[in-house]
């Protein structure tokens, strides 16, 4: 018998990984130069969480999937044009600042409040998904803070796999040190799962899914609540680009034997 799940995926938007980033400090604190015009994508690990969630929801008929995302409305709309074509979901947009410098505790408070207010959410059936770290702040704490605020006491981080059983319990594989997974069994929902890459490939764009999603996404974006994030006494002493620029020595004229000999010497050198 399939289990009915209520899956909420928390996913932010981040600058496309191939963009060059330059930090600047403005009146409201640090940010990125031209942040609003940088191409953005759904946070990569959170995107993995979304695809895993959609897969789980599809295998368990009657399940529901929400995507909660905090960011500037206009940026969210841009990113959703692509994401909406991947898998079916209901968007819960929150109009707020972009970037990695706002405090994670404030972000978590806003997300938890929005999730708690979802009218059709049955918290007993809740699986709270997200990336185990964002590609912006990369703190790996937001999901745990949201989970605590929602009173959930079973958390898993660095998740690569969830196997749901007929009785509602599930096995989780979490990344731990040394390239291994810790295997745990939880008796059932509710639980928090911070995803690493998982095992699913990125779904292909499906225009039909996109059209169905956009019917609800556009009205949701129009009604998105604005959120202001508190600094919680977090202050930035400095924000800068790393200064490590190496003087690269390009070796073009050595034979494989000569290169190998050099490498052996280098490997053995203390």
């Amino acid at each position, binding site marked *: 018998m399939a289990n009915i799940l209520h899956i909420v995926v928390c996913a932010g938007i*981040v600058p496309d*990984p191939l963009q060059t*980033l330059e930090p600047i400090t403005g009146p409201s604190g640090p940010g*990125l130069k031209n942040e609003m015009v940088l191409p953005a994508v759904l946070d*990569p*690990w959170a995107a993995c969480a979304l695809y895993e969630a959609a897969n789980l929801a599809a295998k368990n008929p009657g399940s529901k999937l929400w995507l909660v995302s905090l960011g500037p409305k206009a940026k969210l709309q841009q990113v959703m044009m692509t994401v909406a074509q991947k898998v079916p979901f209901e968007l819960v947009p929150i109009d707020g600042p972009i970037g*990695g410098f706002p405090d*994670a*505790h404030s972000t978590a408070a806003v997300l938890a409040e929005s999730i708690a207010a979802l009218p059709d959410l049955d918290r007993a059936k809740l699986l709270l998904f997200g990336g185990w770290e964002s*590609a912006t*702040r*990369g*703190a*790996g*704490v937001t999901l*745990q*803070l949201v989970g*605590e*605020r929602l009173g959930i*006491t*079973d*958390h898993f*981080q660095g998740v690569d796999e969830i196997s749901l059983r007929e009785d509602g319990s599930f096995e989780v594989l979490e*990344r731990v*040190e*040394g*390239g*291994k*997974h*810790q*295997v*745990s*069994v*939880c*008796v059932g929902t509710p639980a928090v799962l911070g995803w690493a*890459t998982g095992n699913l*490939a990125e779904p292909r764009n499906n225009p039909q899914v996109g059209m169905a999603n956009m019917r609800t996404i556009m009205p949701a974006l129009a009604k998105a609540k604005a959120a202001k994030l508190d600094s*919680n*006494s*977090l*202050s*930035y*002493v*400095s*924000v800068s*680009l*790393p200064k490590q*620029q*190496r*003087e*690269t*020595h*390009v070796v073009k004229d050595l034979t*494989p034997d000569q*290169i*190998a*000999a050099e*490498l*052996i010497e280098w*490997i053995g050198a203390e």
Partner: protein
Amino acid sequence: MENILVLIHADESGSALSKASLEAVTAGKELAARLSASLTIGIVAKDSASAASAVASTGARLMAVSGEAFAQARYASDVVATEALCRVAKATIILAPGTSRFARVAAGVAHRLGGFIDTHITVLGGAESVEATRWFYRQRVEAVISRSVRPWFLLLDAGTHAAFAGKSQPVQIEQVAVELPALRTTVSGFRAPEQGQQTIRPDAKMLFVAGAGWTKKQPDGQVHVGEASELILGFLRATGASLGSSKSLVDQSGEGNSVLPFLTHLNQIGQTGSTPRHAKGLSTCCHGEEPHVVGWRFIGDRRAISLDPNCGWTRGKADVVYIADAFPVMAKVNALLEAKKR
């Protein structure tokens, strides 16, 4: 005055301390000395006696939450254990290693205590206050942060401090009692990737990065995946290096193509992978930005073998780039390593 608490935990044996925990002890000792603050060490372990002995020479106050329930890493039990230690220590600054165990629970504990948390700390500085250095945007932007509100949790990245190495001695530990909630999660053990031997070795001196070029057509118009596998695994066997991979190569494995069978997403370095710390790194057949910029951020001495003399991502990122075909080079390297062994 600050009260500094260093949280540490036992490794899989249930009693010995992990290297990351000993590094956090060093960080705590240094910070306490600099701020003239009190230092407490809180241990979470099945059996805390030997862990406490190992850090007894710090002279810190030692307390522990011990018992069978704490043999394994689980949110519900670890969160009450660490919360209790923080409350008894009346800690204002809590340092902990950024291990998978503490990364899972520390934010929850910070919330329960009404405190705040920052993670991936690489440097603890500041003159009279505490300033912490960490990276943003996947190791692309570095920032120094501070907070005036306490308690403040700081999770330290592994490899950023020397491991504490004091003389082990018997010591009295304050055992802190906790009331466990009903536990809904059971940890049943660990599982290594099924693809064969373990290729991820965090303590290795060298990181070997395999790029997608290993699976591309070679000058004879054929792909040589079997040969590539043998060369890579042979090098890992001979040197004890850890294996990292570019995203494109790992993704090919996930899409069911005939590629290097021992690679999983756990090997992936870069934007959606890890940023490991090793003294040396050798990149082969790898042309993307991610392994070189993000994945290599904490690699000391870097060399690359690439066919592309104009690869913009190795320029400025690697110390030496050899413009050559990695297949014959690595075959010769392996042969020399083998001869050296004999």
